[in-house]
């Protein structure tokens, strides 16, 4: 369950997030684990409390997984909250991680979905496979 990442792995995660998620127009992207640890954050989180965001997102994902169980699903693969100016998108990465993407109203949800799905495939092996 525990995780140690080398500098090389962190660098690989950073370049995957920059290329696939930030280039798609996201303002900021965070990789967190499901117990609430912040693994990597990229983008421009001015005034954003990323540590609190990581903890709350992990809890939110956990609570939603309980809702999923109540309706006979295992889990939800993604969650999306729409705001007036800023949107937030959560994608499950393997069993143990969550990718959190913040993006503005001019960026298409479809593109974010596509690119976070792609980056997920890159991240899973770096994070140790079926975590």
């Amino acid at each position, binding site marked *: 369950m*525990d995780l*140690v990442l080398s500098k090389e792995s962190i660098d690989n995660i950073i370049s995957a997030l920059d290329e696939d998620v930030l280039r798609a127009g996201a303002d900021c992207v965070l990789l967190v684990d*499901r117990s609430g640890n912040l693994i990597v954050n990229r983008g421009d989180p001015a005034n954003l409390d990323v540590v609190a965001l990581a903890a*709350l997102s992990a809890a939110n994902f956990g609570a939603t997984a309980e809702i999923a169980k109540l309706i006979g699903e295992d889990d939800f693969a993604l969650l999306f909250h729409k705001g007036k100016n800023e949107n937030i998108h959560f994608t499950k990465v393997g069993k143990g991680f969550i990718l959190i993407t913040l993006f503005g109203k001019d960026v298409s949800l479809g593109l974010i979905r596509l690119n976070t799905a792609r980056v997920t495939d890159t991240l899973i092996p770096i994070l140790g496979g079926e975590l």
Partner: protein
Amino acid sequence: MSFIDLSKNEVQCKIVFYGPGRGGKTTNLLYLHQAMTDSVRGKMVTIDTKGDRTLFFDFLPLALGQIQGLSIKIQLYTVPGQVMYNATRKLVLKGVDGIVFVADSLKVQKEKNVESLENLRQNLAEDNVDINEIPLVLQYNKRDLGGSNIPILSVEEMQEDMNKELQVPWFSGSALKGDGVFETLREISKVTVKYVSRKLLSR
């Protein structure tokens, strides 16, 4: 679960304050938050609170400086102690690295303490964690009520009820006044960081 980032030489671990309802878990975090400087503490998050009962959790991140070249980041969480919120407790407990069990010294809470500790044992076991293995510290809270007209348990009785088999470090305290709060944090941080780094770096 803990996380070591070798690019920053940083370790992150999760410590959960557990214990019966109204025992003083949230008060421990509030005390730490107001007693620590900005360079150590992050923003405290308290969600879903109805009156002063915790419904989901409280969260306080701390940066505790360096141990053997590793910077130590600790995330403190509290669970809701009320019996009916067990699903929430399990959720917050996910990936825990160390536990502070806050027991209530009030005589009327004697059974509640024991039930809550048993509930902890069970919830950990469901996640394949052995309560005898994970870092655990007991805090006998509300000792400031000794000498008042409210009946309280003796420390010996609390030891007998909760720590006879576990044999873990314990502290008397008053979260309200701040007595024993830092001592509790220091001990649990020390054993948790030791436990986590041994487990992670020996692989």
